[in-house]
């Protein structure tokens, strides 16, 4: 009797099968709680906006997005990834802000035969020796952005630079990427505590060293602290400030005119002039009151990439979607995006300056292009 019930249920499931399979399921992982919750909130907003723009579908198929909060903890992320893959049976796992979390879920997701698309983190192992055919990046490889800054400062003829970053892996990666293209003198390389709130002691030392330029990577709240204190200590008269992932549309509302004129490199900016970006930025501002950050843009791009892949594949078939994404030509807020052999984007790196827009709101504006079609250095180590 019991066997019969199971068989009947299985038959019912089979007949219901085609209708079920039509729904494209995406598991979207980001950090929604804790002090980094603001980043996750922006990404969630952008994903919802993308779904609104596609009319609730992905590639013309009905779609469902399941948001999960990784709490910025690798163990929680791993648990959630397993749940998404095994019990929710999603077609794509996407999102992930932090490199260490992405490393934790990379194997369980890709080995299960599910596609994994990063909206932010781009650790070097996943671009090189540990790359996997089921993993794609819709953001950048960690080194690409600081490499752009290294080249820019090299070409600007800057003789001496003072480096400062938090003491953790991404901080060291950023400085290594910078030095790959900058050959001038490094006056000092200072690593601060992760999560440090007061940089006055470091700034006093910097003032005494009088470097021509200072290059800083201080993401999130640390960036707000650093730039505020830089300004308050009158460092503008001592050295010129250049940053990556420090002055952006997340920190600018808290900094306002304090950060004006600060130069950064980035692969995206709200003023990029293409149809998709204009629509994304205008609708984001209208709906959520304020500029989207690059995190939001990359989250939006991730959904657009899935939309593109499902449409080209004619359904949520993993092999066909993988082929569609690997072929590149993905429509994003950064224009049509090409994919490298390691499935990281080949893209331009721009110089951005913090400015006030027509309404007097602080934002960033592209003032030049450092790299055109820039590929990361790790792709040569990657073979599937």
């Amino acid at each position, binding site marked *: 009797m019991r066997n019969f019930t199971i068989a009947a249920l299985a038959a019912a499931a089979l007949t219901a099968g085609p209708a079920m399979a039509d729904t494209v399921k995406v598991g979207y992982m980001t950090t929604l709680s804790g*002090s980094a919750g603001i980043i996750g909130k922006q990404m969630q907003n952008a994903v919802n906006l993308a779904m609104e723009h596609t009319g609730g579908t992905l590639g013309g198929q009905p779609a469902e997005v399941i948001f999960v909060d990784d709490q910025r903890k690798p163990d929680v992320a791993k648990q959630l990834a397993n749940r998404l893959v095994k019990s929710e049976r999603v077609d794509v796992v996407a999102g992930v802000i932090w490199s260490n979390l992405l490393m934790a879920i990379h194997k369980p997701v890709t080995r299960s035969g599910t596609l994994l698309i990063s909206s932010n983190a781009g650790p070097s192992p996943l671009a090189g020796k540990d790359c996997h055919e089921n993993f794609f990046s819709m953001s950048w490889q960690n080194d690409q952005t600081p490499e752009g800054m290294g080249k820019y400062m090299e070409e600007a003829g800057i003789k001496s630079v003072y480096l400062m970053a938090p003491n953790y892996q991404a901080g060291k990666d950023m400085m290594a990427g910078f030095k790959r293209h900058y050959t001038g003198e490094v006056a000092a390389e*200072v*690593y601060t505590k992760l999560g440090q709130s007061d940089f006055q002691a470091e700034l*006093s030392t910097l*003032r005494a060293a009088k470097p021509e330029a200072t290059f800083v990577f201080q993401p999130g*709240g640390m960036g707000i*602290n650093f730039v*505020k204190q830089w300004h308050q*200590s009158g460092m503008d008269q001592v050295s010129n400030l250049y940053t990556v992932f420090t002055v952006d549309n997340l920190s600018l509302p*808290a900094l306002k005119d304090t950060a004006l004129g600060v130069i950064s490199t980035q692969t995206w900016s709200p003023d990029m002039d293409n149809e998709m970006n204009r629509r994304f930025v205008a609708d984001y501002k209208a709906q959520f009151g304020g500029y989207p950050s690059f995190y939001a843009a990359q989250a939006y791009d991730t959904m657009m990439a899935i939309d593109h892949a499902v449409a080209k594949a004619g359904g949520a078939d993993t092999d066909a979607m993988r082929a569609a994404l690997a072929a590149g030509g993905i429509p994003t807020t950064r224009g049509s995006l090409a994919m490298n052999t390691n499935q990281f984007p080949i893209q331009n790196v721009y110089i951005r300056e913090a400015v006030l827009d027509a309404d007097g709101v602080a934002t960033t504006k592209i003032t030049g292009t450092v790299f055109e079609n820039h590929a990361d250095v790790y792709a040569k180590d990657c073979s599937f």
Partner: protein
Amino acid sequence: MSFILLLEQIFNGLQFGVTLFLIAAGLTLILGIMDFVFLAHGAQVMIGAYAAASLTALTGHFYLGILLAIPITFASGYLLEYLLIRHLYRRNHMDQVLATFGLILFFNELIRIGFGPAALFSSLPPSLSGFVNILPDTPYPLFRLLVIAVGLACALGIHLLVSRTRMGAMVRAGANNETMTAALGVNIRVLRRLVFAAGACLAGVAGMMLGPLTAVEPGMGEPLLILSLVVIIIGGIGSVRGAFIAAILIGIVDTMGRVLLPVILRSFMGQAAADGAGPALASMMVYILMSLVLVIRPTGLFPPKG
């Protein structure tokens, strides 16, 4: 390292120290005199910073914002004691830890609901964003000097209040023998409430002064809470004088460690190894100091008498 830079770093350490003292002063009284384990003191810092930043934005005046924020932090401490804390005095320490840890989560979430998860804008008025030459050709931010001055003034005020006034005598008596003090006609419950509110207010003032310097965001007080607990342990639990000396000591040790350790390590090991070990060791300095003090004087530097 030149003398001028060394002096500047001592000022930086002093400024960090007095900020820690403002947080630790109230906490050491709550912990030592009231024998109550209170972990949500960092939330009082956050409340102070948010009150000052939002009232400054609302009124358009920095000083008016601060002036209005001070009674708010006092009232928040007073209300918190009245509504919740007074019911916990007779409970054991574990219950107090659980309840006040819950308060941390509660306040962080409350701020997030009220003000959103993003950091709040806060800056200095033009009149305070200038520089003062502490030595010829050595500019130092005016606001940081003001922080030092306010911190020292508060320290002097607390010292006089506790050691010279009738009110202070009651607080000290209450700490020594609560039942006897109550029997002599002192309303010990009101006294506790006032001490608690004053402690919250001092932490709030620390938050107000941190606001223009750092990011005003949910959970901003927690890293400071841990350091102020270290201050209390080094200073001797319940001693305001000990908290003051320990706070200045920690401020200077932490600052000097961050600045000098990488330089010292670089003189006898490779650049890469020094860059890695320097910051790691610097962030441990404060705790190493605490361990040393505890080995030599298990009750802290200035344990209260009685």
